[in-house]
Structure formats: C-alpha cells, structure tokens
C-alpha cells in the first residue's frame, strides 16, 4: 500500500500532496483540542494495526483498517493517517517524505468516502449494520488499491501490469478486511458505543455478532 520513493512523477506527487494538505486542513479544522488526545491515540492504534499480521493461506498480510478509522473519525482520518504514516516512515522507513502526501491521500481519502457512504448505516439496530460494516471495510481497501493503481498509471502508462498486480493482490485482503471491520464495529457498538460519532447509545438485541 505504501508507494515507495522515487517511483511517482512530479505532477502526481504534487497533486497528491496538495489534496492531502486540503484534506488535513479540513480534518484539523473539525478537530478541537478536546479531542486531540483521542485522535492522536487512534493514530497510534492505526500504526499498530500495521504490525498485526493476519494469516491468509500460506502467507500473512497486515491489515490496513482505514475503514474503521474513517468510521470513527470522519475527516479526522486525514490528520490521523498522515501522522500514522509519518511514524511508519520514521520507525521502519516505509514510504518517505515525497510520497507522504500521495500515500495519505490513497489511504485517508477512501476512509472519508466510506464514512459518508456507510456511517449512518452502521449505526442502525439491524443486521444491515453488519453488512454495511463489511462493505465499508472491503470498499475502503478496494478504493485504496484503485487509487494506488491510478497514481502509478498517471506516472507512467507502462505501469499497467504493476498496477493490475497491486489491485489483484488486494482482492483477498478486501474480503478479510471486510470481515474484520464487521466484527470490530459490532464489538465497538457493544462495548463502547460512543466511539462511533453520532451513535446514540443503547445497542439493540441484534447489533452484534
């Protein structure tokens, strides 16, 4: 998911950076200092998620979980993911300075989109919430993979094969992320319902698995 340094062309880097700046500005504006600690700690939770390896067939993969971050933070996903990716660059040298903008856009953009698409559905008291949470997790990974592919294609048309490889490699991850998001959101609704923005409170009998 991290595009590494030196691959993308100048226009892609700059437009990715510009859009990330806009997204982060919107996210920061909606963030008052009261919730700063919460976003910061969720940011480190997002960073921790990249260290959790989930088995899939013969190998393992680390989850992205931008669907969950989007549902919990809305536009705050932009600054949270920006900081999370900066920490990954500092600790493990994944990504880097020039690609920070594009990588943040590719991960946080889908998070915000899924927040708008599925945010309300997830709070409902029926089995629909489960399906919506699965769709949120899967769709956010799909969108991220597509945006990575688009970033590569805008750089160089001949990256078609590499881009296709990236998207197909993420199809199984999509399914797993959907499952994990569904269970995780169900868990959060039962244990800490006020973590979902706007969720009124008492969970009904069928909101969990």
């Amino acid at each position, binding site marked *: 998911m991290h595009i590494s340094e030196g691959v993308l*062309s100048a226009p892609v880097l700059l437009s990715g950076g510009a859009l990330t700046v806009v997204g982060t500005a919107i996210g920061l504006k909606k963030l008052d200092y009261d919730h700063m600690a919460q976003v910061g700690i969720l940011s480190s939770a997002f960073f*921790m998620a990249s260290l959790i390896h989930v088995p899939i067939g013969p190998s393992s993969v680390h989850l992205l979980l931008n669907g969950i971050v989007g549902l919990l933070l809305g536009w705050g996903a932009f600054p949270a993911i920006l900081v999370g990716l900066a920490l990954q660059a500092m600790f493990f040298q994944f990504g880097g300075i020039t690609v920070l903008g594009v990588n943040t856009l590719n991960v946080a953009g889908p998070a915000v989109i899924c927040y708008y698409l599925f945010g309300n559905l997830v709070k409902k008291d029926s089995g629909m919430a489960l399906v919506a949470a699965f769709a949120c997790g899967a769709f956010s990974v799909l969108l991220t993979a597509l945006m990575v592919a688009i970033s590569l294609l805008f750089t160089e048309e001949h990256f078609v094969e590499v881009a296709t490889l990236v998207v197909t490699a993420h199809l199984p991850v999509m399914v797993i992320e959907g499952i994990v998001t569904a269970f*995780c959101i169900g868990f959060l609704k039962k244990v800490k319902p006020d973590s979902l923005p706007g969720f009124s409170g008492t969970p009904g009998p069928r909101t969990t698995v």
Partner: protein
Amino acid sequence: MLSEAFAQGKSILHRLDPRLRIVFATLFSFLLAVSMGFPTLLAGLTLSVILVLTSGLPLKDVAKRLTTINIFNILLFLVLPITFAPPPAFLLGPVACSREGLLLAARITLKSNAILMVFIALIATMSIATLGHGLNRLRMPRKIVYLLLIAYRYVFVLEQEYQRLSTAIRVRGFVPGTNLHTYKTYAYLFGMLLVRALARAERVYQSMLCRGFKGKFYCIHQFSFSSTDRIWAGYLLLTLILLGGMEWLMPTLF
C-alpha cells in the same frame, strides 16, 4: 519491540541542527524525485552513500531497511523491460527487452535508494520527539505537531497493550489460521485495543485539564544554530545547487 535504533549515535550528523536536516532532506528528496538525468541520479546516490557512511550507522541494519524497496525494484526490472512496447534493445532468450523499460527501472532504483538513504542518514537519526520539536520550529501547524508527539508517546503504550492481549489469546490456546474464528479474534483484539486506547485518551485529557490545559500547546525546546551547522548548511546548499545544475544542463544523457 519498537525502537528508534538509529537515533542513538554520536556522529557529526546526529549533532547537526534538526531543522537543517529536515529542510535539506526534504529539498534533496524532491529534487531527486523529479530528476531524470543519470549523471544527477548517480551523483545523488553517491552523496547519499557518503552521508550514510558519515552517520556511522551499522551498514547491515541500513541494508535491511532498504530491502523492501529493492525487492520492488527487482520486480520492476523484471516487468518493465518486457512490457514497454517501443524499440526492443536486445533479446533475452525468447523475450524482447526494451531499452526504455530498462532505463526507467534503473532510474527508479537509483532514485529510491538515494532518497531513502538520505532519509536514514539525516532523519532517522533523530528521535521522533526531536522531529516534532524541529517541525514546530519550522512553523508546521501546531495541531499536527501535537498529534505527532501524542501518537509517538502512546505508540509504546499501545504496543505493550497489544503484547498483553496477544499473550492472553495465546494462553487461551489461540492458533492463527485461515478461518473465521481467527479473523473474529483479531477483530476483537483490535477492537479491544481501540477501546483501551480511547479510555486512556479520556484519562490523558482529564489529567491535562487538571494541569491547566487551556487549549494551546507550547513547545519550549530551543535549538541553537552553531558554526558547525552554518558550515554544513553551506556544503549542503552547494550540493543541492550542483545537483540542480546537473539536472538542468544534462537532463538526458542516455
């Protein structure tokens, strides 16, 4: 265990002003990322190797950090020459390898290694706390700096929570596999991590209020720009001008 392995060191690079290092690394990275000429890229790579050697970091560890991008680079060398339609340069067995594809793969390899090595030599050699304070002095928005520092401070706490939960599930006989039970367990694990993180955040906020937090974040760390920093700033500026000049005068030498 998470650790900032490269941040402890005593080389001259570790002692340079963090603001200088951040600014130079950023300018260098962008300059190299948009350059096309091989002379520029090779010069950039040479510079980055010199910086890594100056930093005194264990070379094996640096090489380990470079493996991920180089695996991707090898993939590019395998895929790009074959998929670039235009003039094939030579035939490798039954397959026509294009010159353009090879050159692109070579460019990307040089760029990614050079940029990452400069990052390791200059930025990874400071602790994230220093990075945060440096960014604040460089006038990054306060809220972002604050988020970075809070996230950094709690990463280690959350890692310990994760280890505790991880041990708990293993003690209960959890063996990861490709099944629903595994995904459910990991989902609940992450959910629990989030719940604990949020509860902690609430307590952190309350304790900040108790200590008089009024909504403004103050960064009191001062950096001093010494004569060593001035000399290095001069050198580094010269290298940037040199690289820029090379790119301008010899953009395509192949």
